[in-house]
């Protein structure tokens, strides 16, 4: 596992350098094209934008993200099963600290992890996920998310994502200046001659190409990270079937996650935007096709280690090069998969009820146990008023409850 983390960090550093190079090239050429000799200025502006965005996302990224997703932090008493599952996976992954746990009140089953390092990690799951998945499946999904945390994917994707954003932004601004303001200046400085013309052509080409290149790099990395997190999930749980059937259930769901948008989509376990076109993969998707991920997990042949995953990956995709970095493959130990656990006791109905109750409690609903066996769940607006039980007519006074 350590080898995997280290291999990830090396690869990450390399790609961050490539992206940074691209970013500064765009800044320089743009500055040079707009005003001869302005290259350093452009470079400086690109650098400042990048540093500011990176600092903001490093320190505030996780809370911004959780707020955008509409996630609410929960305590152990709110949902003991989810808490226990996350605790179990924290131990299996050897993380130093239990991540903060959030729920999103949304019927679409999905999950994501965030936080710049294992000390500041958070996992968020939707109510739909809690309702749809059995305990083993939930464990697979949580293990996948903690795999992202342990492999330092979150920080890395954030850094690369920010650079991609900066490049896109610069190219966009540059294009505007060229079309609306730059034209006049260019004609007046015709004395710049041939050299200037070349730079302008290069700048235009870069403005078109750089955002595309940046996005392709980003997406390729993103897909690779999903595979690796799947491999980590199998390793932690020693039960690849859990994640496989969870992915299947998630991808069969037709509910659409309301709070997801293009900026936040890459963070989720299954791309929340591509509800209709899942199964198709191309260069422009952040996630590998779910059906392929499921097939890989199911082809692991009784193993649960990184080696089994890598072999299954090569077999299913037909690619010669596996997804697990070579150094960590050499150090990986064989890990047999666990046998199937006995069927989950809780039915879907019970899970839906438990999840709904949890959300109501989070929204300060009062729970009143009536003598006739009914439990009244009263919205906070009724606090201090009296209410009659619809079954037996007993009148209850709505007090603020601790539960």
């Amino acid at each position, binding site marked *: *596992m350590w080898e995997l983390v280290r291999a990830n960090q090396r690869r990450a550093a390399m790609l961050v350098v490539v992206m940074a190079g691209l970013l500064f090239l765009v800044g320089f050429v743009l500055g040079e094209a707009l005003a001869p000799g302005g290259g350093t200025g452009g470079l400086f502006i690109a650098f400042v934008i990048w540093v500011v965005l990176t600092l903001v996302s490093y320190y505030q990224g996780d809370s911004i993200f959780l707020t955008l997703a509409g996630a609410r932090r929960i305590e152990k008493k709110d949902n003991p099963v989810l808490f226990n599952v996350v605790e179990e996976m924290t131990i299996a992954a050897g993380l130093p600290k239990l991540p903060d746990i959030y729920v999103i009140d949304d019927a679409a089953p999905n999950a994501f992890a965030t936080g710049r390092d294992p000390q500041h990690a958070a996992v968020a799951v939707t109510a739909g996920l809690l309702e749809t998945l059995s305990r083993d499946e939930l464990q697979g999904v949580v293990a996948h998310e903690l795999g992202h945390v342990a492999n330092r994917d979150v920080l890395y994707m954030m850094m690369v994502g920010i650079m991609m954003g900066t490049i896109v932004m610069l190219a966009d601004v540059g294009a505007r200046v060229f079309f609306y303001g730059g034209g006049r200046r260019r004609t007046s400085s015709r004395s710049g001659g041939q050299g200037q013309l070349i730079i302008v052509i290069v700048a235009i080409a870069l403005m078109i190409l750089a955002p595309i290149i940046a996005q392709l790099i980003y997406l390729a990395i993103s897909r690779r990270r999903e595979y690796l997190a799947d491999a980590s999930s199998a390793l*932690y749980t020693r039960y690849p079937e859990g994640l496989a059937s969870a992915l299947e259930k998630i991808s069969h769901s037709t509910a659409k996650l309301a709070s997801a948008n293009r900026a936040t989509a890459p963070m989720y376990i299954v791309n929340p935007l591509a509800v209709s076109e899942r199964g198709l993969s191309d260069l422009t998707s952040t996630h590998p096709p779910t059906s392929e991920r499921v097939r890989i997990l199911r082809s692991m042949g009784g193993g649960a280690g990184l080696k089994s995953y890598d072999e299954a990956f090569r077999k299913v995709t037909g690619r010669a090069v596996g997804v697990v970095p070579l150094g960590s493959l050499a150090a990986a130990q064989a890990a047999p998969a666990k046998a199937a656990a006995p069927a989950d006791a809780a039915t879907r109905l019970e899970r839906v009820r438990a999840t709904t109750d949890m959300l109501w409690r989070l929204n300060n609903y009062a729970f009143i146990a009536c003598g006739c066996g009914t439990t009244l769940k009263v919205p906070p607006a009724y606090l201090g008023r009296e209410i009659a039980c619809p079954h037996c007519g007993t009148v209850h006074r709505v007090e603020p409850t601790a539960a």
Partner: protein
Amino acid sequence: MMFGIFVLVLIVVAALWVMGMYNSLVGSRNEVKNSWSQIEVQLKRRHDLIPNLVEAVKGYMGHERGTLEAVTKARQQAIDVTGGVEERAKVENALSQTLRSLFAVAEAYPDLKANQNFLALQEELTSTENKISFARQYYNDAVLRLNNRIQMFPSNIIAGMFTFQMEKFFEVETPEDRQVPQVKF
């Protein structure tokens, strides 16, 4: 002069290599210690939960005195054990076994299955059981890594020089424990 510098560089490189190797061995050893303490936390938690469970089911399972006593006895043995990893593993596995048969027997008591307190305790104990097995999984991986380092060339040279000790695995149950618990109603 040239030769002197060459020897000096060689010594420095060798010293750095020994240092790096030694530090990574210490790292592996601490990893083992660390993951062992994680197991102990969970074992302790299980010992603390069991009296509550016995208390909760007592009223419902009067006829199952034998099962309850077996759990209490196994717990006491697990607390009293003073041996090393192997000894610990043996008594804790026995405790897991008795708990499993307790929960299997509980299936026959619908009243008990509807008791919120019992359900919460069952979830806690099942999860603690899982945590123990995940902590053990992590511990065994760490032990394997350390032991490999101690035995494999070239790290075995450094390990031998500074007398690093091989650690023992926390074994999974013995074959007879692996059988499905026999439950008689």
